[in-house]
C-alpha cells in the first residue's frame, strides 16, 4: 500500500511571501523520512504541501510537482479531498474532536466519508487503536469523550484516527513536541511499527529523535529571516549524523548553528 513520493521543483507561497524555494527530493516507501532544520525554514510548510493542506491556509499557493508513485498531486483534475484520504496527517498538538467519543473520533474519517456497517466500523476502530498502541488503555471507555485522555493518549488517538482511513503515506508534524518522554517513546515505537505498512514523513526539532526513528533525514535551512527555506541535503540518517556532505548540516547538528 505504501507509496513513493517524488517531489520536483516545489515552491510554496503565503500570499506574496515565498516560504520554500525549489525543493526536489524522493521519499522512499515503507521507510521513515525525518525533516530537521531551524524554526521557520519551511519544514512544516513542505510537509503540508504533500497532502495539499497548504492551500487550506488563506493565501497558500504551490508551484511544482509532487508525484505519488506516478500521479501528480497538483495535476489538473486532482481532488484535494481524495489526496488527503491517501496521505494522512498527524498534527503537532493533539486535536481530537471534542464533541465525539473515543470510538467516534477513530471512526470519524470513515463515518464522515461515507456509510459503514456498524460491525465493520467496530473492527476498524479496534484494529486502528491496536495499531496505535492505545487499545488496552481505552477499550473499557470507548464511549467516553476523547478530550478526557492524557496528552500522549490523545496524540495516539489522533494517530489511530489517521490510520483508520488506511492512507498510504502518513505525515507527522512534530508529533511529540507537546508530549513527555514516556509518551514520546510510545509514539516513536509506534512509528517503528507503522513503517511496515506506511510511508512515514516526520518533522521534528529533536535531532536525537530523528536519529532514532528515521531511515533518511532531510536538512532544511534558510539564508536569513524572511528568506524562503531550502532543502540543504537529504541522505541516509546515519550519513547525515556522522558524515554529512554539506558543512551547514554538520554545523546545525553539532550545535554550531547561528
Amino acid at each position, binding site marked *: 500500500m505504501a507509496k513513493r513520493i517524488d517531489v520536483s521543483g516545489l515552491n510554496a507561497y503565503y500570499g506574496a511571501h515565498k516560504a520554500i524555494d525549489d525543493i526536489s527530493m524522493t521519499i522512499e516507501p515503507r521507510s521513515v523520512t525525518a525533516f530537521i532544520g531551524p524554526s521557520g525554514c519551511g519544514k512544516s510548510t513542505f510537509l503540508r504541501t504533500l497532502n495539499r493542506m497548504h492551500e487550506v491556509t488563506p493565501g497558500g499557493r504551490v508551484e511544482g510537482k509532487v508525484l505519488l508513485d506516478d500521479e501528480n498531486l497538483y495535476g489538473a483534475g486532482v481532488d484535494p479531498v481524495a489526496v488527503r484520504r491517501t496521505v494522512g496527517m498527524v498534527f503537532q498538538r493533539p486535536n481530537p474532536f471534542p464533541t465525539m467519543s473515543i470510538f467516534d473520533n477513530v471512526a*470519524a474519517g470513515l463515518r464522515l466519508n461515507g456509510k459503514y456497517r456498524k460491525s465493520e466500523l467496530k473492527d476498524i476502530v479496534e484494529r486502528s487503536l491496536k495499531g496505535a498502541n492505545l487499545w488496552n488503555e481505552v477499550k473499557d471507555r470507548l464511549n467516553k469523550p476523547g478530550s478526557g485522555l492524557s496528552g500522549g493518549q490523545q496524540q495516539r488517538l489522533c494517530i489511530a484516527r489517521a490510520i483508520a482511513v488506511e492512507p498510504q503515506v502518513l505525515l507527522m508534524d512534530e508529533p511529540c513536541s507537546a508530549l513527555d518522554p514516556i509518551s514520546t517513546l510510545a509514539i516513536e515505537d509506534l512509528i517503528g511499527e507503522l513503517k511496515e505498512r506506511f510511508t512515514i514523513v516526520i518533522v521534528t526539532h529533536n535531532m536525537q529523535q530523528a536519529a532514532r526513528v528515521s531511515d533518511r533525514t532531510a536538512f532544511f535551512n534558510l539564508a536569513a529571516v524572511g528568506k524562503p527555506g531550502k532543502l540543504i541535503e537529504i541522505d541516509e540518517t546515519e550519513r547525515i549524523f556522522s558524515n554529512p556532505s554539506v558543512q551547514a548540516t554538520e554545523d546545525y547538528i553539532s550545535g554550531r548553528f547561528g
Partner: protein
Amino acid sequence: MTVATSHRHRKVAEPRPPLALKQSRLPRWTLPVLALVAVGAGCGIGLVAGLDSTVQWGLIAALLFVLATYLLTTAVEGTRQAKDRLATSAVWTAFLLAVVPLASLLWETVARGTKVLDGYFLSHSMGTLPDALPGGGVYHAIIGTLEQVGLATLIAAPLGLLTAIYLVEYGRGRLAKVVTFFVDVMTGIPSIVAGLFVLSVWILILGFGPSGFAGSMALAILMMPVVVRSTEEMLKLVPNELREASLALGVPKWRTILKVVLPTSIGGITTGVMLAIARITGETAPVLLLVWGAKTINNNPFDGAQQSLPLYVFQQWQQGSDASYDRAWAAALVLIAFVMVLNLVARGIARWKAPKAGR
C-alpha cells in the same frame, strides 16, 4: 567630606528591611458592620434631610460605605490594600445599582400581575368583552406571539446561520466585507423602520392585508443580524486545528463544517438564537403596524389581524380602566415569564451540548 562619603556609603550598604509577610489586617466582621453602619447613616441622613427618594438614601449609604472602608483600610492595612478594597466596593456598588432596577421591575410586575393572572386569564381571549369590565384573557395574544415569533425564527435562524457560516468559513475579500457591513447596518435598524419597510412593500405595494406573517417578516429582519453576529462569534471560537484535523482525514469542507464545526459550537449557536428570539418577542412597533391586534382568537397567522403579548399590554394600558390596567400587568408578567423560560432553555441546551472533558 568624609562625613558625606561615609553617609552615602552607608545609605547604599544599608540592608533593606526584611519583607514582612504578615501584616495587620482588619478583622473579618469589619466590612459587614461597616455596611450596616453605612446603611443606618444613609437612612438617618435621608430622614433628617427629608429626602423623599429611597434611592437617594441608598446612594448616600453606598458612598459612605466606600469612603469608610477606604479610609479605615488605609489606616490599618496600607494603601495597596485600600485601593484593592476601593475597587472591590466600587464593583459591588455598581452591581447593586444595576440589579436594583431589574429587581424592582420584576417585583412590581409580579406584585401587580398576579392579581388577575389565573387559568381563566391564560385560556380565554377578550372576545366581545368591553374594555372597562374585568375578565377576559390573553390566550389570543399568546397564540399570536408564539406563531409570529415562531415564523420569524423559521425565516431568520436558517438565513442568519448560513450567512454566519459563509462569513466565517468561506467569505474572503469584497463580498464578505460588504455582507459584514450590511449586517452591522441591520443591527442598528429601529424596529419601527423594519415595520414601516414591510408595511410599504407587503401591504401598500403588494396589497396584502394585515397578518401575523407580515409581522413575522419585520421581526425576522430584526432578528437576523443578531443571529448572524452571535453565530459568527461562536464559529470563530472553534479552533482551526479541528477543521484541519478533519480536512486532513479527507473529509470535504462542507462535511467538516456540518459534522465537526457546527456540533462543536452548537451550544453557543442555540443560545444566540434563543436570545435573539427573546429580543424580538418584546417588539411592539412592527406588530402594531402589520398585525394590528385583535380581540378574538385567530389561529391562522397568514390571514387577518392577530394579537401579540406586547401589543396587548400596550392596548390594555391605553384603555385606561382599572380592569384593563390589571390585564396589562398580568400580560406583562406572562411576557416576562415567556422570555425567562426561553433563556433558561437556552442555558440548558448550551450546558447539555457543550463539549465535555469528562473522564
